[in-house]
């Protein structure tokens, strides 16, 4: 059998199935074109198995699928476009063996997608992943693969794999620690086997211990956010005094070699308080403040000191009881959304904190031309669900109030338009609140995604 040559359409030649999926079509074409030489060799090598392919053929279909998953562009490449493209491929292929390979790829891909979805869902529900293909199909009965997109599926799958790997490493660490503790008990001469077993059981399952440990982990997260972990060893080697950032006097919280300290201290409002700028570094004033427009009612509600003057790029700190007296380093950008967030459309969610505090508006996903910016967590979030909002120094636990889309023309409007849109979409903003617009970039691989910058407005008006 000769090496198959397929007549793929030119990039600029319109095909009905290309509409709306230009990248998907081109990408599929590229993948198949890359593999066609190899496919010919595979087809030459003979066929076996239920799908009519050799083991190598099956591996090839897996490889193509993997390529789609791993190398897929962050573009509107949907499974729908893949399906249409692959169906077209099957129709166009004249050689029955090529048709067979195309159909096998479809079947294999469909199964892989279903299997991955099953794995993700099982993990989420704490169930066992399905062990047989029949079980995979049973669990995904009625699932419309064409409504999925690779970006979402890939990121969810990667997250699943990462969690599993991390769990393995943590379990290994735990075993090591158990041994260490056992040795210490032996050294104390007080380690009767029964009491060690009881102690081990206690430590393993203790919710109280975890409650004590989680705030420590949150603080560690804050330290890592400021690059403390990486600086520490080098500072120690240099014989310098190593001090955690938050132990340094307020207003000068930074470590040697780290970026400049926060310049604004912003206190989180409590029931009786309105947001107030407590201090402002000279550099902020010199840079020229952004005077956020407030409505008359908002000015009245906000009271003295509530008007926020922030300069684009300035860092500031949120602190107060809502944040359990920890500080959260944020970065302000210009209030002009268009200037800083070059999106044509954004998906925005409103959140409230579990304790009283500011309402938080988070940009979860954006579209810039044909590029879809990361927003995989949006789909996982359900109304009322808990979610962490990442800042540079920590994470805030929040409840989702709702989500809505902001179209191009309105997205380019000022903050208050966004607030009004939020209200129109049933998101009730707290009377004395901050509106924070941020990017969900902490788990994003897209370096263009504004690197955790946070846009601060405030205070929002009561709804």
């Amino acid at each position: 059998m000769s090496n198959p040559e397929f007549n793929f359409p030119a990039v600029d030649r319109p095909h009905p199935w290309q509409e709306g999926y230009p990248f998907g079509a081109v990408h599929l074409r590229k993948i198949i074109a890359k593999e066609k030489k190899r496919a010919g060799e595979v087809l030459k090598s003979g066929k076996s198995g239920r799908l009519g392919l050799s083991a190598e053929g099956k591996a090839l279909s897996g490889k193509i699928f993997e390529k789609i998953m791993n190398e897929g562009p962050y573009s509107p490449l949907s499974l729908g476009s893949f399906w249409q493209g692959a169906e077209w491929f099957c129709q166009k292929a004249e050689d029955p063996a090529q048709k067979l390979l195309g159909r096998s790829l479809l079947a294999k891909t469909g199964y892989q997608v279903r299997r991955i979805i099953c794995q993700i869902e099982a993990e989420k529900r704490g169930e066992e992943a399905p062990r047989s293909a029949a079980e995979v199909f049973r669990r995904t009965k009625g699932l419309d693969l064409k409504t999925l997109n690779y970006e979402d599926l890939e990121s969810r799958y990667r997250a699943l794999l990462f969690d599993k790997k991390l769990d393995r490493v943590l379990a290994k660490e735990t075993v090591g620690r158990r041994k260490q503790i056992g040795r210490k008990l032996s050294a104390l001469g007080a380690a009767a086997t029964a009491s060690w077993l009881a102690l081990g059981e206690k430590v393993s399952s203790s919710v109280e211990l975890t409650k004590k440990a989680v705030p420590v982990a949150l603080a560690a997260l804050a330290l890592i956010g400021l690059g403390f972990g990486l600086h520490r060893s080098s500072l120690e080697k240099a014989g310098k005094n190593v001090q955690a950032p938050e132990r340094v006097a307020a207003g000068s919280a930074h470590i040697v070699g780290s970026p400049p300290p926060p310049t604004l201290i912003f206190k989180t409002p409590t029931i009786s308080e309105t947001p107030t700028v407590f201090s402002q570094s000279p550099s902020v004033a010199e840079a020229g403040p952004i005077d956020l427009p407030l409505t008359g009612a908002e000015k009245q509600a906000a009271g003295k000191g509530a008007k926020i003057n922030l300069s684009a790029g300035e860092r500031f700190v949120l602190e107060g009881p809502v944040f359990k007296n920890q500080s959260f380093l944020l970065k302000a950008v210009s209030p002009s959304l268009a200037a800083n967030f070059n999106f044509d459309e954004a998906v925005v969610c409103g959140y409230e904190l579990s304790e009283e505090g500011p309402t938080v508006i988070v940009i979860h996903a954006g579209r810039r031309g044909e590029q879809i910016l990361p927003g995989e967590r949006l789909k996982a979030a359900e109304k009322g669900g808990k979610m962490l909002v990442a800042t540079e120094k920590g994470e805030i636990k929040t409840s989702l109030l709702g989500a809505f889309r902001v179209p191009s023309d309105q997205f380019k409007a000022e903050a208050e338009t966004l607030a009004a849109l939020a209200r129109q979409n049933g998101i009730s903003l707290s009377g004395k609140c901050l509106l924070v617009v941020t990017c969900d970039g902490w788990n994003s691989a897209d370096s263009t995604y504004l690197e955790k910058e946070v846009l601060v407005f405030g205070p929002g008006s009561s709804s």
Partner: protein
Amino acid sequence: MNNSQATNYAREITVRLIRSAEKPGSAGAEFLNYFLVEFALDHLNPQAQKAFLSQLLTDEEGAIDFAASQIPDFEKKLEEALVEKIFGLEKELNE
């Protein structure tokens, strides 16, 4: 992997560790519990270690409070030790 990537990775690990710890009995919760206990034992003198362990069998929270009262800068040292450990995990996960 450069410093910035390592920091991002360490942050990701910590976030996932915290999320995991929300589920009782999970790998994350167990790891943090043992980390806390081992850290306390490492920093207590033998007599205090005995008191700590015996209290741990009946009142875990009280045992940690006891350790915190005995170890100067307990919280700070613990946080720093955890950061160090997380960067260690980061290296291991990248191997």
